């Protein structure tokens, strides 16, 4: 951290009324009451969930994860472990294996996310070099047990199928290596030859 990153704040000097404490409390109560009896404000602030639903910002809402599929319907993840490295809650558990496809080296044999442990910070999405893991606007997560809340690969791919209409997958950046991240074949330069 550099010195100019640090912003020094001076503590405000309190007036006599503020130091007496009570006037401030009354001030707060007044604000609350004003909001309570102001019909217009109340309707703006309060949503009658679940009858009413809030409008979400679809692009960057951080709800349940999904694992994207490439245009061929295969999992786009290349099991590089960047998400589990970046994850501050240690909730992503991957087991990598040799991929069954000739154009790809590695793929996740197992991919588990503990949705109860997750703090929905979105670091996994940021770390992913092939945009395979994304957070969706879906937030209504329920489960009967802790085990049920550990989402495996199939479930995460299923979330993609469910949410792709709402939030389509962006085509990720193409690397020189070709289709590492499961990009669309029309965009990637297909110079990846079959493995020996």
């Amino acid at each position, binding site marked *: 951290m550099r010195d100019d990153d640090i912003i020094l704040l001076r503590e405000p000097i309190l007036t006599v009324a503020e130091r007496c404490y009570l006037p401030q409390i009354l001030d707060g109560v007044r604000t609350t009451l004003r909001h309570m009896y102001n019909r217009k404000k109340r309707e703006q602030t309060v949503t009658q969930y679940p009858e009413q639903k809030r409008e979400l910002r679809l692009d960057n809402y951080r709800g349940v994860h999904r694992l994207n599929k490439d245009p061929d319907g295969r999992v786009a993840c*290349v099991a590089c472990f960047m998400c589990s490295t970046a994850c501050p809650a240690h909730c992503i558990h991957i087991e*990598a294996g*040799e991929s069954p496809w000739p154009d790809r080296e*590695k793929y996740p044999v197992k991919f588990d996310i503990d949705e109860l442990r997750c703090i929905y910070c979105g670091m996994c999405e940021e770390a992913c070099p*092939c945009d395979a893991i994304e957070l969706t606007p879906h937030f209504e997560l329920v489960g009967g047990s802790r085990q049920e809340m550990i989402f495996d690969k199939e479930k995460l791919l299923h979330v993609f199928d469910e949410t792709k209409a709402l939030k389509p997958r962006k085509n990720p950046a193409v690397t*020189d290596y070709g289709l590492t991240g499961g990009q669309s074949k029309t965009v990637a*330069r297909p110079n990846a030859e079959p*493995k*020996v």
Partner: protein
Amino acid sequence: MPAITVDGKKIECRDGIPVLQAVLEAGGDVPHYCYHPGLSIVASCRLCLMEMKLPNPQTREPEWVPKLFPSCQTPVKDGMEVRFDSDRVRGNQQHCMEYFLLNHPLDCPVCDKAGECCLQDYSEKFGHASSRMVEDKHKNPKKDIGPRTLLYQDRCVMCTRCVRFAQEIAGTGELTVVNRGNRAEIDVFPGVPLANPLQGNVVDLCPVGCLLDKDFLFKQRVWFLNSTPSVCPGCSRGCTIRIDQNENRVHRLKPRFNEKVNAWWVCDEGRFGWKYVHAADRLRRPLIRRGEQREGIRWEEIPATLQYQLEAHAAADRGAACACVLSPMMSCEEAWLLAKFVRRLAPSAALVPGPAPRVGDDQTFASGFRISAEKCPNRRGVERVIAGLGGTRWSWDELLANATAGSVKFAYVTGGYPSALFTKETATALGKAAFLAVHDLFASPLSDVAELLLPGAAWAERDGAFMNDDGLLQPFERAIPPLEGVKRDGQVFFELFGQRGLYRAADVRALMAAEMPEFSQVYAPRELPEHAH
């Protein structure tokens, strides 16, 4: 001792080494791929070039020469003046890095070397952030060159370290360079796979992710691994290694530089010989025979039980019919603690060095690297402990003969071998003892007849010191905790010895050194800086 000036700073160095090695030993970092102190010098990567001052032929005044010199091929000379901190040297490094990356794929996310890759490190430190290459990359194929190794030719930087290793160190020469230019490839000869007993070292030597272990492939990203310095228990050479583990599972062993024993290398047998540590059939709980049945016993009850049994059998004749087998898989400290416990209660008890398994003959390679035929790490150390304590000493055969004759009443047998070693005959002989305690990793015919069966900890779960066949005492640390339900051998013996608290090998060694001065000094090889080879 010559002194040279590097970037205006005077450094003292060993005689006869290249400038590059001198700078690395002084703590500097000069990028290099083809240079390795254990191999011959080819000066082919051109990354370590430096500027040097030579006398002008006309004026005889030393001045900077316009040409760059490879620092790996220039031996140090007293009074020499070189510099790496100049625009010309930096320019060369940047150009070289750009060339190395021309055809190198951007597949760090799926490459197992990522995180410990010299190409990554040097790109960041000495290279460019972007590539000017507009053509399609030439993609050399991936090859299966041996039973344990894969070659990703597209990642190769043609340093030929692996080729030189196979020729000079292993002496088998399976690898070679074929084709030229950007089509150059490392390859094996047809029908000759890379399968020599040292071949795993080419993976460590490879500065990039070209040569990879099939055993470790895709298992872990290297930044998750935690390293612990250790000593290989595979044979009596005692190569220094490090154990890389994550979440209490060992994932690989890597050699640690040791000028007295293994230099930079380790054999495949040791490198891949750790699998038994996580074997599913390891013993997991202490058992005691009560009547016909064997039932579980708590670890806290074991010192009292052993003490009672040993006292009972040693009461008449000071323990002349008691024997304690000290396995050559034990560390010196563990052997000493157990022997001390037995001798305190039974002064005439016999100490028996456990059987040392031998397979074939010693193997010596072109470079002098040796694999010992004796497949246990500490026979010499245990023998020293027994000799140091004096008293009755039986050989393993004498013990079996005495046991068959029925003159052994109490026996404590330690094992710890990577596989069950004790046979049915051993079990029949030692089964005649009135009380037999067996401390081992795996079930065997002997453990079936034991009165008291203690599960042991594998070497990666223990700490102590092994004495190799040259008499060099080398400490090793524990990398992982023992299996659930198992107690570290050292801790068990520490409690038998009558101590409370945590067993620490160094403290026990200090106690030993008071009686046996040869255990006062351990040899720990010097640590090399990150890019020093």
